[in-house]
């Protein structure tokens, strides 16, 4: 489908407001009588709290209350409900809103201080005295996996929270007969996330009705409402959750957090509004992080470089808790076999607890890890056989004519997973063409003359997007002729307001300015899931389309009665329903909306249902698979070990593009995320679980000055699995990027250089590698 707006690179309706500082974020909320919260957080990674002495702190200026879990006993108690229960997790491993006895990572919230200002609250938080019995700590996931390791939870006998298995085909047979088998170990670093806006919550209580209102910087406001209602044993109707403007989410904000509960409990207890704004120091120790994994992989392949089977064991660092169940490690399994047509697969993932901040999905979840494994293996096979890297891929990829392609893995409901559409080889060929891989050796030579080692990297990926069950949308035309779209899908800056307006405006024949999109307020739309996993364009986008078509049908029915014209002869255009070919035989949408809003004693034509409005839920029952191929060039300074990405080209296929500008922005940001993973971001802990990189001076978030120009080319293979033909685009930039950059570095280091199975790499490591090759 395409129309006036769908598919057009219209500028984002959000931007004027967000770029001129007139956005409205949680911290912009000021309520009469509001208190400011600061948390007393653990400065140690593992210990049992014997007692908490808050007397001195309570006497400090501006302090109104200091609560620990005990203080909420009359409201609620116990651990938080798990967000995603999993049969393999026998007991949920979730936080308490405030840690009650055992603390399991640095940064865990122990008490909440309420004061008249944040500064006073922080002063008092520093004066709360804890008496702690320190417990043995485990901060290294490989050690945590060993049988005799100290346990992250003192009551557990082992740190292995679950062992997940998946696979298909007959690995034993293929490995026994394969031309070649290689074994490699991979160590993929956990990393942080770092949305520009940290988390934040404002909670308020209506003193007459007891209703709670919560504004939170979240990707999952409806999950906050659902789990908080369950925890408080309240009806959802008494809890309104909304997300004002949110300055980036990228995954961690999809969790329901202890702090959200602690602030809500404090408001209920003190009966005043409470605001908590996470600062960057807290973000480093209390917001979930990325995806540390250690993999041991065997790969079987034939003399032609065709990848046939993979056997893999993974040690997955889940941190101290599993608030999001096993979702993150599950995405590692679900990312196999990527673009490769494997005959057999055998995976085991040990989900391991450590005394570190929990990990949960961050842009791509574990898909970037698996893309790293598969793409590094493809390069490894090429090197082993002395072949071109692209030949290994072309011989191993699923072919376009095999679509839809059944991978062999099963979805959560037991149905076979099948790729819907795509041309993986075509994408790789295109990206090699766009980066002019043919002439690369000339560029390598030119760099050499400047004392630099140049390398070319390639990486491909397939991404499952649009996971169900649904996001919904309702559309209402007001008597002024304005179109109001409401959806439960929360927005963190992705341009939802623009994209949904494009879809609705086309269906209803109005201008973009006539459409207002309201997102994620439980008082304005009844249901929502989460803005995660590149699913909103598919789920909410399709629902907007379905709802708009219902409204359109209703307007046409009305006009058909009024104008006494057959419905087939009517169309929507210029804010009106008009007779095709007769420009002035029309009724404006505003008139229809006014008529359907009703007047005393006047029956509605044709006994129609009132209100020019409709709600729709698109059930996304089957995943739709986006894919991409990336190529990049790096220059290595052999003296300092510095690696600079100098060119980056993306070929990406996310089906029909609703707005190419928005998709480009998603991909560009995603690539930067991946370059950060490959070269910069390292979250370092010591053996005692103390984080050592907790400022941006020490934690290297990538900056514009280090980023290459990123060139993006789209292929558009429509998805047959939703009414608007789209696939998700939020993570496709990130997924292959680290693999692509490391592939280029390895190529730069030359045929005598090492195989690189880790990231991020450091300049110091590069210097050592180069020394070893000489």
């Amino acid at each position, binding site marked *: 489908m395409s129309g006036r707006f769908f598919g057009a690179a219209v500028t984002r309706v959000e931007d004027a407001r967000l770029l001129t500082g007139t956005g409205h974020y949680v911290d912009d909320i000021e309520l009469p009588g509001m208190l400011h919260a600061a948390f007393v957080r653990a400065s140690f990674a593992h210990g049992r709290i014997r007692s908490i002495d808050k007397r001195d702190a309570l006497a400090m200026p501006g302090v109104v209350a200091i609560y620990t879990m005990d203080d909420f006993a009359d409201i609620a108690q116990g651990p938080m409900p798990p967000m995603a229960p999993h049969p393999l997790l026998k007991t949920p491993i979730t936080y308490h809103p405030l840690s009650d006895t055992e603390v399991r990572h640095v940064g865990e919230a122990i008490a909440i201080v309420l004061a008249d200002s944040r500064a006073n609250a922080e002063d008092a938080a520093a004066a709360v005295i804890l008496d702690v019995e320190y417990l043995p700590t485990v901060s290294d996931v490989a050690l945590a996996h060993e049988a005799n390791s100290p346990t992250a939870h003192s009551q557990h006998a082992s740190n292995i929270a679950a062992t997940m298995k998946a696979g298909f085909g007959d690995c034993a047979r293929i490995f026994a007969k394969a031309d070649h088998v290689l074994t490699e170990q991979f160590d993929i670093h956990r990393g942080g996330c770092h949305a520009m806006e940290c988390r934040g919550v404002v909670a308020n209580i209506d003193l007459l009705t007891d209703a709670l209102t919560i504004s939170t910087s979240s990707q999952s406001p409806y999950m906050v409402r659902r789990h908080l209602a369950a925890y408080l044993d309240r009806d959802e109707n008494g809890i309104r959750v909304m997300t004002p403007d949110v300055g980036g989410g990228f995954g961690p904000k999809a969790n329901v957090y202890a702090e959200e509960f602690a602030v809500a409990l404090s408001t209920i207890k003190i009966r005043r509004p409470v605001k908590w704004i996470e600062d960057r120091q807290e973000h480093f120790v209390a917001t979930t992080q990325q995806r540390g994994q250690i993999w041991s992989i065997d790969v079987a392949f034939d003399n032609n470089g065709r990848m046939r089977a993979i056997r893999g064991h993974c040690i997955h660092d889940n941190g101290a808790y599993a608030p999001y169940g096993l979702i993150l490690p599950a995405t590692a399994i679900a990312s196999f076999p990527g673009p490769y047509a494997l005959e057999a697969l055998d995976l085991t993932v040990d989900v391991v607890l450590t005394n570190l901040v929990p990990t949960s999905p961050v842009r791509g979840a574990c898909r970037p890890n698996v893309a790293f494994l598969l793409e590094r293996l493809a390069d490894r096979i090429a090197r082993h056989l002395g072949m071109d890297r692209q030949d290994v891929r072309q011989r191993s990829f699923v072919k376009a004519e095999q679509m839809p392609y059944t991978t062999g893995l099963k979805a959560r409901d037991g149905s076979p997973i099948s790729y819907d559409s795509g041309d993986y080889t075509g994408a790789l060929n295109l990206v090699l063409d766009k980066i002019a891989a043919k002439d690369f050796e000339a560029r390598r030579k030119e760099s050499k003359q400047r004392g630099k080692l140049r390398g070319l990297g390639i990486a491909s990926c397939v991404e499952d997007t649009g996971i169900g069950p649904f996001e919904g949308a309702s559309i209402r035309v007001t008597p002024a002729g304005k179109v109001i779209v409401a959806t439960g899908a929360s927005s963190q800056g992705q341009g939802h307001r623009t994209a949904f307006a494009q879809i609705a405006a086309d269906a209803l024949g109005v201008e973009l300015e006539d459409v207002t999109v309201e997102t994620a307020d439980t008082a304005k739309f009844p249901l929502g899931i989460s803005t995660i996993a590149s699913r909103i364009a598919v789920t909410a986008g399709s629902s907007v389309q379905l709802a708009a078509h219902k409204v359109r049908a209703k307007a046409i029915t009305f006009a058909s009665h009024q104008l006494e014209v057959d419905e087939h002869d009517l169309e929507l255009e210029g804010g009106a329903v008009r007779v095709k070919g007769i420009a002035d035989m029309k009724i404006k949408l505003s008139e229809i909306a006014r008529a359907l809003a009703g007047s005393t004693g006047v029956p509605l034509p044709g006994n129609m249902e009132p209100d020019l409005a409709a709600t729709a839920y698109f059930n996304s029952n089957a995943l739709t698979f986006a894919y991409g191929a990336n190529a990049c060039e790096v220059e290595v300074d052999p003296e300092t070990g510095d690696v600079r990405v100098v060119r980056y080209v993306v070929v990406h296929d996310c089906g029909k593009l609703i707005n190419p500008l928005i998709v480009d922005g998603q991909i560009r940001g995603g690539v930067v995320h991946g370059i950060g993973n490959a070269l910069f971001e390292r979250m370092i802990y010591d053996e005692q679980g103390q984080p050592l990189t907790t400022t941006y001076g020490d934690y290297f978030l990538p*900056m514009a000055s280090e980023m290459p120009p990123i060139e993006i080319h789209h292929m558009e293979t429509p998805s047959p699995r939703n009414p608007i033909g789209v696939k998700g685009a939020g993570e496709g930039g990130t997924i292959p990027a680290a693999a692509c950059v490391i592939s280029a570095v390895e190529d730069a280091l030359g045929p005598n250089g090492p195989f690189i199975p880790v990231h991020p790499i450091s300049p110091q490591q590069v210097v050592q590698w180069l020394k070893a090759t000489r």
Partner: protein
Amino acid sequence: MKAPPFQYHRPQTREELGTLLSSLENAKILAGGQSLMPMMNLRVLAPDHLIDINRIPGLAGIRETPEGIEIGAMTRQADILSSDVVKARLPLLSRALEHVGHIQTRARGTIGGSCCHLDPSAEQPAMCAILDAEFIVTRPDGHRIVPASEWFEGLLQSALGEQEFLEAIRIKPWAKGHGYGFAEYARRHGDFAIAGGAALIEASKDGRITRAALLSFGIEASPRRLSDAEAALIDQPIGKLDLEPAVAAARALDAMEDVHVTPDYRRHLAGVLIRRALNEACTTLERQP
């Protein structure tokens, strides 16, 4: 990340500043705030008093005097970077300032603040060290001049006494057309460097070095002049310089370790960067006709 409580003072004159400095306990001067405020917000520092010297007239500005170029302590890094006088006569300082922080931090940050804070990787104090700057210090009973060789007392530790403040920095420019070179390595542009090197040379008409200064910074707690290597350069012909003594001297420094890098790597960089700085100095040197 809110600073602990403190009392804020804003003197309008040097006299008021002097009185405050001699009467307040645990006080800190606030200049551009680009190092001090983050440290307070991280609660690494908790002064009871902040003395904001931004309103005291005459503390900022770049003046050419017979004794050299005088840069007021409160001169913003951005103003030094855009100064034609500095560009023409202290080109090494200009060159180094491109690497200091970002547009935003240079708009507030001052040369005096950087020279009092003394981060081991800070470019401005390092350039003061290689240029043999003089630190003009104001104290209750007048002024004293501290030569660069005595200014650095250790990690984050200057020679400034309790009741003193830095008034200005005076630098004697090298001869017109001198060679200058600067090299540093930081992971991201504007970060504090992991290591750096700088070189200054003057040469005779026949292309032999007559004067040289070499410095490594970011390696030890304070910037380090490589005096023996400087001496070894004298009389050497440009174009056929023996760089090895400089590289060896830099690599022999007692390098610091941090969470990201080992002393070995830092020493390795020290050698690479002093060589680059010296090579660059040879190319910027204007040959006498």
